[in-house]
């Protein structure tokens, strides 16, 4: 069996003393991490931030605790979330520092061509707190299980499922108020 045959969690267990195995993790997951970034900050900044995520992963590899699912994606998305926050913080003016978001709304607006979709998405996400918003997106946009998304956000699997259930209900209610005829 070669390193390429090892599952993510075994590679991450090796990474502390074998940083090179992160190259295999990269080949498996860089496209997904790029999409994660592009959804939140737009394609052009995502191109720059992709490298930042994996370089941060090299430093973070000594502390990694893979999710029981075995996938490295929850860990990588957690790092990517921090990278997105730092990126947005750098872009904001000093007066807006307290309102750092996890999504660049200008970028989201720019990539959604249908005006109604932009409006609806804003309504849905505005109805949620930051943690619930990211929980919803990690599951719906990035394909994590609720438990994996919970790990990214520091929530237990049970808490993540419960919060996700309530968040979805609130989001749907907000959406219904905006466009009741569309239901």
């Amino acid at each position, binding site marked *: 069996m070669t390193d390429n045959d090892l599952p993510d969690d075994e590679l991450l267990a090796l990474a502390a003393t074998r940083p090179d195995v992160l*190259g295999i993790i990269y080949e498996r997951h860089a*496209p997904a991490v790029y999409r994660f970034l*592009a959804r939140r900050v737009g394609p052009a900044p995502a191109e720059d931030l992709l*490298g930042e995520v*994996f*370089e941060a992963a090299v430093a973070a590899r000594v502390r990694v605790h893979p999710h029981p699912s075995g996938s490295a994606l929850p860990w990588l998305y957690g790092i990517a979330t921090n990278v997105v926050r730092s990126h947005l913080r750098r872009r904001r003016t000093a007066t807006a520092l307290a309102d750092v978001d996890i999504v660049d709304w200008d970028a989201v607006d720019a990539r959604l061509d249908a005006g109604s979709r932009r409006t609806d*998405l804003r309504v*849905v996400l505005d109805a949620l707190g930051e943690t619930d918003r990211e929980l919803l997106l990690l599951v719906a946009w990035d394909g994590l299980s609720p438990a994996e998304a919970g790990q990214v956000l520091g929530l237990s699997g049970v808490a993540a499922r419960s919060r996700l259930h309530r968040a979805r209900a609130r989001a749907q209610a907000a959406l219904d108020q905006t466009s009741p005829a569309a239901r």
Partner: protein
Amino acid sequence: MDLDTLLRETRDVPDASPAVLSTARAGLDASTGAASLRVAATRRALDRRRKRRVVLGALVGVAASAALVLAPTFDLLGRGPGGTASATETLLRAAEAAGDQQEAWTDAPYWHSVSEYQDPGGRGDTVYEREIWLSRDGVGILVDQGVKDGETVGLGPARFPAGEGALTWDELDALPTDPVVLDEQLRAGIGETHDEDDALFVMVGDLLRESPASPELRRALWEVTARIPGITLVGDVTDAAGRPGVAVARGIQQYVLDPEDGRFLEETLDQGETVYRSTLIEQGPAETAPAAPPLPDGCTSYSYC
């Protein structure tokens, strides 16, 4: 609108282009490369610490006189088969590369070498670290974990073993660099021996290890080695420091060299099993050396005491 439909329809983004993926991968490789070096450095540091503890624990009470024998001497008994073309080719290649080692040869007052050695035939499996600053005319310094528990030891002006006698630094500088003439001169310094070729092979190693021999002299020394009958090519090896090299041997004595740059990397003595190993980690000129310890009572110099 249904929430799942909205989230699905806002999910799609274009994939990263191959150029973007390739660029980020290059950045990752640079980071993992640097991290790997740090891991290796940490391991070496831990190994050194562990070995130092072992040495200090094992050698308490071992005394060594100030008149130090810096390199063990061995009775070289074995005699290998006739020299092989491949050994000669390897040595001539190393000679040419060594002649190109122009950098870093200066008139610096010290020649600094770092090595480690093991003496399973005499002192067990302990690995001893050794660092020496040879001085042309003044006081040299030796810090050898196998000598006086690694205390800093003062040495007289450098002497380089050469057959029955020893050469001063100036005499080393004056050695001929024509391989035929050098061969004759070195053989003339060999006393009575059962095997002059073996003695010459040993002498060449002595003049390459912990030695400020010029690139021209190094070239000539490897060329002399290539002329010695009975040298065999052992083949590609990795030395104890993890460096790739090529080993050549005569009898029980084996040298590992880097044919790409002509560096002398390691020597071993093998009598069915390795009875001695010395790995030269680095050597080069130095402007300074650690302070010399006080002369022992009753001594007038570090050379004669």
